[in-house]
């Protein structure tokens, strides 16, 4: 503590709310940088983990353990660093950290299926629930919430309920022994028999855990409230991996036509859960997941759709996986007859792209169909003779089904096996969707390498893999965000640069290719989340493709082919080569779900709180933001700053009255004298702002007539005149080579700009606040609204209230920060006195338009 600080301490000057003496600007800046450094080492580890998920790396379990250990330490360091900057104001983040870390440990130990609620309505589910819903229910949740398709109403008894059931009935010990036995390398179903049998029986005779029956009763009451007492339920299995990477088709039990009474549902539930331990299911598990003992099961209880027709769609023809047709089979009544192979069906081959032309159809004589029986289950009924030879689907139903099917296939990026039903109102319900399993042998014969030689290569060995995979479609070039509005289903997105805004279309994108970008960007992370094949940094791609051109992107060998490469697409569907199904990938993916997704996106929203942090990434984002906020505050304490530091006036041809406080590298050391000219400013963010303010026409007074070139070579000292904004108090710029904290008081309004601008993209930020004005609140608010619109146009997150506007931007490369600061400088200059002219709402649009067109002189013409 220097003498000045000690004195202030004694006299109690400049204390913060907490009663602690605030840090000096230099110390604060140093600690701010320490926050950035800590955040960076954590974010680098996250990026490293994320990159491994792209499929472009070979890694093992040890790598995951080591990196996670390093990450937990790094994030804790970030929490320490923020508290060091902010006088320990963020103690609460330690408990946030503990909460998130405990969760990750649960994932590492494969115990996360034990957390959460035992019963949940499908309508209330979201991403964070997927792990306890089981695979099949998670897919239904996605189709309901992400794809907005109709699925039957219902609720889920989660994997948490399963664990409660095990514990409540004293089966834990047996289950542990069973899982250990399954992990033995030479495990057989025969060896498991005694344990298997006792678990199966234990579950069939189990008592409900406390509260389960009443939770079921509540859910039933809600559904009966809508559909009446007559509704019937289908109780379906949804094991952890079911429908995800392996189909488990027909391995577990489904109980149909169950009456909506809690005891009946519970009884059916037990039967479905017990089927986890059936010899049939165990044989399947030993085959697809050798060495893995743990698997829990959730159960979905869905309203049975009274279907007039139902069936199955394969989005590719298994006999011709590279072809362009899908197969739709259909029959009258319930679809179970089809999957069990019990009934004659109509078969339609439909083209996979609009207008979904019907290619061939074969209509069977359907003399019977399955329908719910009064006493439960399903029974065969005769089909009226006039319907027996009729197609069970109309052309328009076929078209709608095909469109839904493609939506689902494009969303999951793999061929799908979809069960559906149509009710008496003609509404189409999706009952389940899973990856279609096609044996590798079904693909084209011969060497793939040879087959590929006949296709024209547009790009070879260029770019980096952000997400591995293969995708084909028509090119849709995205120049501006609005180009995303008409993004066609299944197109390939090609763009100059990457953007996290692409998330809006990722559910319908076959692949993404960008000319610049890195595999560690936010967009790359999103591509991995959505499994969108993605190549970034592909040189000159925009000059090599055009809108509407069909291409195939191989984001593995880093090649792009002209046209649709059927052989590659067939190769992609071969399941035994599906790397994302391996244990290591699944673990890494689950960890990253809890580490890297970002929920706290907009720091200006109310939800930006420690409680809302769901991942380490959220926490790091929060820390960065609060560190910035702390720096913003620093500039406000004018009196203290002027006491602590020698401030040097900045000499500009416009009257800004800025005093400079240099924390290092912000002013050319060769600059002599008591006044610093523009040419001697070496702080990059300050220079950018000043260049904007000095841009011809922006500062609408006589002084601005000086041309920009003149400014740099000969700086004239123009006296402040009455026309210029009357500033009161001092305008202070705290600067370094890469940092700026600028408070500008012009007459009655106040601008704050805080910016960091380094070579490290993710460190960079811009914070801008504008408030006040000399006129009445209506006019002032109009000016604020105008500023808000302009800021938004330049990609800021904006919050405004009355005459206060706050804008946030960041995570941009240095060049973009500089460009944006230049614009901010123009906004500051341009809008200085505009509140006076805001006499109608129409003026807002007029001035916004003028600013965006670069017509700054509009003000002089008024």
């Amino acid at each position, binding site marked *: 503590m220097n003498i000045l600080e000690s004195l202030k301490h004694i006299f109690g000057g400049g204390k913060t709310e907490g009663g602690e003496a605030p840090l000096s600007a230099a110390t604060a800046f140093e600690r701010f940088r320490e926050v950035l450094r800590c955040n960076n080492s954590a974010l680098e580890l996250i990026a490293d983990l994320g990159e*491994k998920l792209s*499929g*472009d*790396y*070979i*890694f*093992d*379990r*040890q*790598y995951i353990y080591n990196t996670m250990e390093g990450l937990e330490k790094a994030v804790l360091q970030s929490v320490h660093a923020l508290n060091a900057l902010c006088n320990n104001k963020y103690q609460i983040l330690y408990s946030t950290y503990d909460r998130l870390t405990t969760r990750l440990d649960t994932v590492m130990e494969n115990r996360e299926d034990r957390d959460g609620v035992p019963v949940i309505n499908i309508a209330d589910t979201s991403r964070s629930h997927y792990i306890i819903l089981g695979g099949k229910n998670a897919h239904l949740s996605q189709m309901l919430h992400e794809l907005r398709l109709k699925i039957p109403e219902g609720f889920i008894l989660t994997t948490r309920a399963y664990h409660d059931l095990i514990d409540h009935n004293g089966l834990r010990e047996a289950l542990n022994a069973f899982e250990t036995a399954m992990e033995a390398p030479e495990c057989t179903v025969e060896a498991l028999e005694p344990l298997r049998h006792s678990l199966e029986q234990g579950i069939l005779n189990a008592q409900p855990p406390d509260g389960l029956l009443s939770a079921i009763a509540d859910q039933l009451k809600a559904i009966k409230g809508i559909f009446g007492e007559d509704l019937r339920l289908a109780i379906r299995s949804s094991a952890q991996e079911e429908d995800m990477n392996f189909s488990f088709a027909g391995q577990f039990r489904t109980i149909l036509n169950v009456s909506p009474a809690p005891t009946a549902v519970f009884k059916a539930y037990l039967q479905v859960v017990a089927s986890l331990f059936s010899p049939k299911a165990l044989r399947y598990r030993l085959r697809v997941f050798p060495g893995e003992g743990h698997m829990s099961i959730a159960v979905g209880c869905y309203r049975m759709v009274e279907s007039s027709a139902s069936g199955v769609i394969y989005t590719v023809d298994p006999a011709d996986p590279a072809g362009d047709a899908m197969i739709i089979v259909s029959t009258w009544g319930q679809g179970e007859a089809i999957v069990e192979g019990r009934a004659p069906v109509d078969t339609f081959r439909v083209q996979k792209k609009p207008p979904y032309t019907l290619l061939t159809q074969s209509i069977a004589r359907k003399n019977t169909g399955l329908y719910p029986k009064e006493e439960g289950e399903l029974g065969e009924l005769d089909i009226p003779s006039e319907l027996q030879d009729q197609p069970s689907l109309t052309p328009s139903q076929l078209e709608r089904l095909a469109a839904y099917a493609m939506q689902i296939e494009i969303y999951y990026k793999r061929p799908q096996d979809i069960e559906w039903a149509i009710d008496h109102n003609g509404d189409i319900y999706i009952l389940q969707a899973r990856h279609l399993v096609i044996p590798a042998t079904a693909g084209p014969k011969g*060497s*793939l*390498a*040879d087959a590929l030689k006949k296709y024209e290569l547009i790009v070879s060995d260029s770019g980096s893999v952000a997400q591995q995979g293969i995708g084909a479609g028509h090119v849709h070039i995205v120049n501006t965000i609005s180009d995303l509005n008409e993004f066609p289903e299944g197109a390939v997105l090609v763009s100059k640069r990457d953007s996290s805004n692409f998330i809006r279309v990722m559910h319908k994108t076959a692949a993404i290719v960008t000319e610049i970008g890195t595999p560690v960007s936010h967009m790359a992370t999103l591509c991995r989340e959505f499994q969108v094949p993605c190549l970034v940094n592909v040189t000159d791609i925009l000059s090599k493709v055009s809108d509407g051109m069909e291409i195939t992107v191989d984001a*593995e*060998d880093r090649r792009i082919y002209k046209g649709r490469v059927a052989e590659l697409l067939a*190769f992609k569907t071969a399941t035994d*080569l599906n*790397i994302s199904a*391996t*244990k*290591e*990938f699944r673990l890494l993916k689950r960890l990253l779900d809890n580490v890297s997704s970002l929920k706290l996106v907009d720091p200006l929203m109310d939800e930006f709180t420690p409680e809302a942090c769901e991942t380490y990434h959220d926490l790091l984002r929060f820390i960065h933001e609060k560190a910035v906020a702390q720096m913003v505050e620093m500039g406000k304490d004018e009196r203290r700053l002027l006491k602590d530091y020698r401030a040097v006036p900045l000499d500009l041809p416009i009257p800004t009255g800025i005093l400079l406080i240099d924390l290092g590298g912000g002013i050319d050391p060769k600059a002599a004298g008591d006044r610093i000219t523009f040419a001697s400013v070496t702080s990059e963010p300050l220079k950018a702002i000043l260049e904007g303010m000095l841009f011809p026409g922006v500062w609408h007074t006589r002084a601005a007539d000086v041309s920009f070139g003149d400014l740099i070579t000969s700086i004239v000292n123009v006296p402040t005149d009455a026309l210029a904004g009357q500033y009161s108090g001092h305008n202070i710029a705290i600067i370094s080579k890469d940092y700026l904290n600028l408070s500008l008081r012009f007459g009655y309004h106040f601008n704050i700009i805080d910016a960091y601008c380094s070579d490290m993209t993710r460190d960079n930020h811009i914070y801008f606040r504008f408030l006040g004005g000399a006129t009445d609140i209506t006019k002032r608010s109009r000016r604020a609204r105008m500023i808000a619109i302009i800021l938004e146009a330049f990609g800021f997150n904006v919050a405004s209230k009355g005459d206060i506007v706050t804008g946030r931007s960041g995570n941009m490369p240095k060049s973009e920060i500089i460009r944006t600061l230049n614009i901010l400088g123009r906004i500051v200059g341009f809008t200085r006195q505009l509140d006076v002219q805001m006499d109608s709402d129409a003026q807002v649009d007029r001035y916004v338009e003028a600013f965006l067109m670069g017509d700054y002189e509009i003000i002089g013409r008024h």
Partner: protein
Amino acid sequence: MSDQTIKLLVIDDEPIVGKRLKQAFMKMGMEVETFTDPREAMNTIKQKSFDIVVTDLKMEGMDGMTILEEVQKLNPKAKVIIITGYAQVDTASEAFRKGVFDFIPKPFRLEELKNIILRAMSGALSESNKNI
């Protein structure tokens, strides 16, 4: 070498490694066999010749150095590439003294291994095979 298809054998006790490499190198037109048990792999090596053997270093039953020595006895022309999660300078240099073609620490990019393999093959194969 009369048969122009490159034969690759991969040994790693973590199945993900073999699975991933098989996927990538089959696509390049190679013939790939993978093993998680080094002893099983040795049985195959005794019966059949491979152009390239990619092996993990630390494994239960038999380590990568032993594999290297055995392969060199059986088929001196084969190139051996060692991958490992425990990169140690000592082991690496010892491996080089024993004639390993190259050494690559996990995790690594597929591209890196591809380049090593291409380098290994460029010496061993005729011009016509360079276009893999």
